[in-house]
């Protein structure tokens, strides 16, 4: 089951660059929430603050609170623990090149010491089914390497890999931007199905995609969150002129 995310007064810096300013928002559980905004507005940084991935950059700094469920992720737990509960799918598919499909999906568990063979088999199958990839690869699980699949399949493999560790939240940073329309549709259908089990946050440049998959949408601009409302409202009658200018493409 998914949990809600509560963000309070979040500020983020990369060195002296104040990338995120006073972000406050509540992401509902078991829903898909889309984050839109122009390049450099901070939406990717924000998402990385949700699983403390921004800390991999040594000059990154964060103040404020992020509660995932009832856990304050900056106070109550270490980054490694958080990342096991908050999964991430990146813009470009990045399966581990030296591992087979099976090992890729199981990697999150194996690398953390899990070794029960039968249980792993079950988890791999379940994850691949949940990411709509099982039928296409079930015969080549251990023979084919992860990198030998097509782009769309690789991305679904990465989703399966993220799902295998059974997270509560799934963060997706422009998951379909490198894919063709058919693969994109498959991923969007997938997000629809996954919503009931996980809380999904999806960063996207593609507004039509946000409109298709998300119940709530947040518009980021210059490090601030300008508007956060139901997707319907944002796309038919947004409250803020800046939101409307962005949505209608009338920027600058």
């Amino acid at each position, binding site marked *: 089951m998914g949990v809600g995310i509560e963000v309070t007064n979040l500020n983020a810096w990369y060195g002296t660059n104040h990338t995120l300013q006073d972000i406050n928002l509540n992401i509902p559980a078991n829903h898909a929430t889309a984050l839109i905004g122009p390049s450099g507005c901070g939406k990717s940084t924000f998402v990385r603050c949700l699983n403390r991935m921004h800390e991999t950059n040594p000059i990154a700094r964060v103040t404020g609170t992020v509660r995932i469920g009832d856990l304050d992720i900056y106070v109550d737990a270490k980054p490694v623990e958080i990342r096991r509960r908050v999964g991430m799918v990146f813009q470009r598919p990045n399966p581990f090149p030296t591992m087979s499909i099976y090992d890729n999906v199981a990697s999150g568990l194996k690398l953390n010491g899990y070794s029960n063979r039968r249980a792993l088999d079950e988890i791999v199958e379940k994850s691949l089914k949940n990411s709509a990839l099982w039928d296409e690869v079930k015969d080549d699980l251990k023979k084919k390497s992860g990198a030998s699949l097509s782009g769309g399949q690789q991305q679904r493999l990465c989703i399966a890999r993220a799902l295998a560790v059974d997270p509560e939240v799934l963060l997706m940073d422009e998951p379909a931007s490198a894919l063709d329309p058919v693969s994109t549709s498959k991923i969007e259908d997938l997000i629809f199905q996954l919503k009931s089990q996980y809380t999904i946050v999806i960063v996207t440049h593609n*507004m*039509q995609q946000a409109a298709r998959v998300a119940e709530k949408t947040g518009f980021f601009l210059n490090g601030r969150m300008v508007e956060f409302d139901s997707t319907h409202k944002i*796309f*038919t*009658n*947004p409250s803020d002129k800046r939101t*409307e200018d962005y*949505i*209608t*493409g*009338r*920027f*600058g």
Partner: protein
Amino acid sequence: MTRIRFQQSLDELKENLLVMAGLAEQAIQRAIEAYRVRDLSICDLVTRSENSINRLERDIDQAALDLLAMEQPMAIDLRFILSVIKINADLERVGDAAKAISDRVRNMEQMAVADLPVDIPRMATLATEMVRKSLQAFIEGDADLARTVLTMDDAVDAMNRAAYKALTKVMEEQSHIAPQALNALMISRALERVADHATNIAGDVIFWVQGADVRHHKSLAKQMEREAKQLEREKEKEKEGNVAG
């Protein structure tokens, strides 16, 4: 500014709709003038402009469809194009109403002039005033102006109902001028429809500018009231039942 071509397309769409609006307004005014002076040549003008209006309706709908498909308009742009499509249909019907009036005038050509207890010109003035105002609201994107049109509809409806009462009485009691009365009744109906279309146009303008759907608010409010009362009555019955049981 980005999306210049798209903005130009939107401006063009608006312009074409206003051309059509001009034709529809002109048709109504001509039809009423034909009624006033009983001039058949004016009726011919109305008939001919009907073709232009129909052609324009198709062109505008096509242009709107293209914009929806090709440009993925959002928010205000989407509402604008939707309202253009609907205003388009209403204007075409206004044209139809004008033609209906001019047909009645043609019909009455052979009849004697009768003194009827109905003020067609006043109704016409009101109706055309509503059309003009709603189109002005569209040109300027003025939702407040559009709301004033909504309030004028009641007056026209009242006049139409009065005309119906009066003219049916004439048809019963003064059967020698029944044909004229019937025609006058149909013209009154047509004008009432024109007023309705103007109300629709005003509602579409409000939807475009403010994103608010003000249609059928009166009847919907009445419906909601009825349902609330029904619910209360059922609750009362339950209570009584419990007390008794």
